[in-house]
């Protein structure tokens, strides 16, 4: 039976790759794992920062905390609100009651909820919280059927769990417990009429920075102010860069890339005699360039695409939790992440170009050089 070759150069290049199957497999694995590693680190950093920025776009403009010689101190709720509202530019002020306490499986963050949840505009049908009741985040209890938990701060309190928040809320309130304000104060040791901190809204984002000196002067006690931009900026500044993760991964990754490039270059240089043979058989320089280009593309593109797909899946798969265990310090019940992929395409393209271009250059350069050399010289060097 006669086999029809629709693309002879394609077939020849694939055949040429398969002449050294072990080298081809190792090259594929090296390139794919390098791209996957780099892609995962950079994509995670970019996605996490982007997602945090979007989630926190409606966060309070300014958070005010009272500080003293011993660190944080509760602030008087009514007086604080009055003072804050007296500063021109502040259009809204309310207090928050929150802090850490020991939960059933480790520390949790308790929040006193001082408004009916039905008016909160939440999409889920959450019950209102009465004294002695709690709504818990998805990471508070391993046993989802337990209906009571004991929270221990300055004081201990047993509360009845009336609802568990969906895992989709994990990035915001994973190990949080929503309580009646009196219960939260009780656990945290905050006196009635006092709150943990004060949150303010201003009309325009840029006003927040300008108002900081006025707010600092308005309060009769030392305060610490955190703007929305500052809080969100922590994430947008780059999780990976701050933690050194990127550099930690980039240095060995670039070294690996250098090894791959050198290996491809040497492999191609060692096979210069083949170019001499092709030319002796009548192949033109264009034919040889086309063959080498196809070999490089078919060796590299599937590996790069495979690496990108692995990286993208690791970061963007809905509900991934491995970053919590590996990078964020969780030992059990890490939060599940639903990360935003806006801008991910550019990161993927950058990684593909960063890895593929040096490899392509290292593969093509010796072949082009050999193709412009006298074939007799190439054959003599190999066989004589």
């Amino acid at each position, binding site marked *: 039976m006669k086999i029809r070759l*629709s*693309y002879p150069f394609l077939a020849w290049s694939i055949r040429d790759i398969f002449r050294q199957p072990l080298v081809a497999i190792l090259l594929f694995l090296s390139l794919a794992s390098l791209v996957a590693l780099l892609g995962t680190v950079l994509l995670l950093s970019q996605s996490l920062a982007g997602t945090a920025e*979007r989630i*926190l776009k409606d*966060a*309070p403009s300014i958070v005010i905390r009272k500080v003293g010689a011993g660190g944080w101190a509760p602030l008087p709720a009514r007086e604080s609100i009055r003072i804050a509202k007296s500063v021109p530019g502040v259009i809204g002020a309310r207090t928050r009651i929150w802090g850490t306490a020991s939960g059933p499986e480790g*520390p949790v*963050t308790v929040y006193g909820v001082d408004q009916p949840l039905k008016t*909160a505009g939440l999409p889920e049908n959450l019950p209102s919280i009465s004294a002695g009741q709690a709504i818990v985040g998805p990471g508070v209890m391993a046993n989802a059927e337990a209906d009571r938990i004991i929270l221990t701060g300055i004081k201990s309190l047993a509360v009845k769990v009336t609802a568990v928040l969906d895992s989709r809320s994990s990035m915001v309130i994973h190990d949080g417990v929503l309580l009646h304000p009196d219960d939260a104060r009780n656990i945290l040791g905050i006196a009635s009429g006092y709150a943990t901190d004060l949150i303010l809204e201003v009309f325009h984002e840029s006003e927040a920075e300008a108002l900081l000196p006025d707010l600092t002067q308005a309060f009769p006690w030392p305060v610490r102010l955190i703007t929305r931009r500052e809080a969100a900026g922590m994430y947008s500044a780059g999780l990976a860069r701050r933690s050194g993760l990127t550099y930690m991964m980039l240095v060995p990754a670039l070294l690996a890339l250098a090894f791959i490039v050198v290996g491809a270059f040497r492999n191609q240089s060692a096979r210069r005699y083949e170019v001499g043979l092709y030319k002796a058989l009548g192949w033109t320089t264009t034919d040889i360039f086309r063959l080498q280009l196809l070999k490089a593309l078919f060796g590299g593109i599937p590996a790069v695409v495979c690496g990108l797909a692995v990286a993208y899946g690791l970061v963007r798969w809905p509900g991934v939790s491995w970053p919590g265990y590996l990078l964020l310090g969780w030992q059990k019940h890490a939060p599940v992440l639903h990360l935003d992929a806006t801008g991910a395409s550019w990161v993927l393209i950058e990684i593909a170009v960063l890895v593929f271009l040096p490899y392509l250059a290292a593969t093509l350069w010796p072949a082009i050089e050999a193709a412009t050399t006298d074939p007799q010289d190439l054959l003599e060097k190999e066989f004589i």
Partner: protein
Amino acid sequence: MIPSPGQADRLGICNGIGIFILIAAILVAGMVFGDALLRSYPHQDVRVQLVRTFGFNRLTLVPSGRARRLADAPNQALDWRYDPRLVRIPPGMADLILTPPD
């Protein structure tokens, strides 16, 4: 044994493999980039609503009370919940680490 001309280098099979690899790579790349460009984020609404309702200004990416949860952690200062400036102020110095009674 001398292979027949069609079998000599299995060029037909190589041709098929090449086209298959090319199509598979294009499909996978298309799926990845298509998802990155077109996919919507239905879960984000819940989180934004929670932030708006309760006035959160941090995410729960790291455990609450990290210093107590990870007593043997090498870097106790790494706690984003309590200070936006990483690795500068230990959480105990920042605020809101309430020690439970023994």
